[in-house]
């Protein structure tokens, strides 16, 4: 049971990281990224390839950097256009990554994937208790990313991003570098997705292309919509609840004899789709709506207009 809970929590941590990244890109900056899974896979593979020679930390940092570079390139190409184009390009990117991973066998092992990925802090404890270390590592990672992103969102940078999301023309008229801001937001989000991929690789120690399916993207969107676009606290809550609900469907398989593995997977993905549509229809602000910040929140010592 402890092992199962650990597994569950590490999975929640991975998806919370992905969700936090998407929340910055889509929730705060208004940039739709349908290629989430591509960035996570890129991060995981970069970690898997680079960790053995460089060590896990350098591998993880390199994965984040690589994903940031890829995001910047995609953003530069398409972000000047309507958001529709970014959505299409990111879908294409996700597919391109999948095909590259499957076919560049010399680097990625093709369909067989890469095994024996080094894990962080392995030498500190006995293998039997390593799960706990990994759990603490994951939670620490989420805490760090959460703090950094929350600081970013509260900073002037976050404020301008929201302004760009709500009305890019007004922001541009006020002299804000809209293109640069969007690229930065997209790159930071990409880097966090890379870190999520690294954690995925550390946790499983074995990765292959079949682990990176569109459910990762769908799940991230569901978590962001459910938590409330722009609210990081809501996102953590959303990611946790949905994972719990999805895990609950696992027990459905035992309860209902007729459902097989494929049907279960279909049921999960279909339910996520239904959830996305219903939430958009019925509660677009999510469970926790984006906090409305006032001038006083940013300048507590200033008398302000009041």
């Amino acid at each position, binding site marked *: 049971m402890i092992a199962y809970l650990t597994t569950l929590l590490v999975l929640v941590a991975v998806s919370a990281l992905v969700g936090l990244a998407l929340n910055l890109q889509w929730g705060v900056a*208004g940039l*739709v990224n*349908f290629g989430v899974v591509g960035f996570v896979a890129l991060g995981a593979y970069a970690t898997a390839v680079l960790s053995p020679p460089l060590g896990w930390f350098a591998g993880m940092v390199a994965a984040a950097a690589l994903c940031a570079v890829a995001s910047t390139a995609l953003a530069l*190409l*398409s972000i*000047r*256009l*309507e*958001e*529709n*184009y970014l*959505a*299409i*390009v990111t*879908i*294409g*990117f996700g*597919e*391109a990554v999948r*095909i590259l991973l*499957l*076919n560049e066998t010399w680097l990625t092992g093709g369909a067989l994937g890469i095994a024996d990925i080094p894990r962080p802090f392995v030498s500190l404890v006995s293998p039997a208790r390593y799960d706990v270390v990994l759990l603490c590592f994951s939670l620490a990672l989420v805490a760090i990313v959460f703090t950094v992103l929350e600081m970013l969102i509260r900073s002037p940078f976050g404020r301008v991003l929201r302004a760009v999301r709500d009305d*890019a*023309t007004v922001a541009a008229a006020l002299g804000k570098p809209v293109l640069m801001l969007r690229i930065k937001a997209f790159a930071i989000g990409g880097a966090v997705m890379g870190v999520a991929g690294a954690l995925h690789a550390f946790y499983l120690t074995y990765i292959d292309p079949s682990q990176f399916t569109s459910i990762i993207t*769908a799940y991230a*969107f569901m978590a962001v*919509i459910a938590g409330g676009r722009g609210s990081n606290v809501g996102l953590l809550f959303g990611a946790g609840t949905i994972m719990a609900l999805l895990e609950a469907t696992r027990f459905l398989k035992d309860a209902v004899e007729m459902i*097989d593995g*494929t*049907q279960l*997977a*279909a*049921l999960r*993905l*279909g339910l*996520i*789709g*239904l*959830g*996305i*549509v219903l939430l*958009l*229809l019925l509660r*677009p602000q999510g469970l926790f709506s984006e906090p409305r910040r006032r001038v006083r929140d940013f300048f507590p010592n200033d008398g302000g207009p009041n």
Partner: protein
Amino acid sequence: MVAQLILDGLVTGLLLALPALALTLTFAILHFPNFAIGAMLTLGSYAAWIANSLLGIPLAMAAVLAALAMAVVAMLCDFLVFARLRDRGSMTLLVASMGVSLILENVCRFSFGNSTRNFAIEVARPIRWHGLRINHEQLITAVTVVACVILMQMLLHASPLGRAMRAVADNPSLAAVRGVERQTVSSITWCLAGVLSALSGVLAGMDRAVDPLLGWNYQIPIFAAAILGGLGSPTGAIVGALVIGLAEELSSLVLPTNYRQIVSFAVILMLLLVRSQGLFGGKAVRK
């Protein structure tokens, strides 16, 4: 060899033309890219497969039934989801269409599993003509698509409905003032999109096989075709589809076949770099 590739490419392109047309029509009227287009194609092919293989109806009749069924499904999607979100901006709509896509695709997967299905049609020997190999499926695809395209062009350019559609695409408020109802036009557009995607689903199912990822595999080429033609331009979508089909087939001269699927993505990237409004897109989309 090259002639054979060009022939195959043109037929592949014709296959893409119908869903690209459906995508571009909904984009012109509703101003959002419908990411459920691939899933609609998949559902259409399953509908035809049920009628054809399970109920024993001849494929041509089954395709008509599938088209009718998908027209209803597409109108339902509009009524239940898209019409209600219309005023919330294209971003909400496109994420919602992704949700709809997940639902449709997984209804198919839940009901029939991941295994591939084939229509009950006789396998016929390909026709040889001046050294070219022409399959019967290719002939059927070419005839069906050309007929559909001619009908659609007549509908769009020489009928009151086409005028109403173009009016709503251009300026919904002004069209409403003149008595053209936006909701009616949008329902009819979805109906057409459903018919087109179902027919392309049948053709795609004949070309490959019916499986839950059938439409998803066409998703990026469909978008590439529509963007290439300029989103919102029906003629452009058809030309774009032919170009993408040719590019995909001819790429096998220089690329390993595994990488064929990347070709459309590369075309999209090139277009965004060079000519973002596409070949026929009049309006600049740049912000």
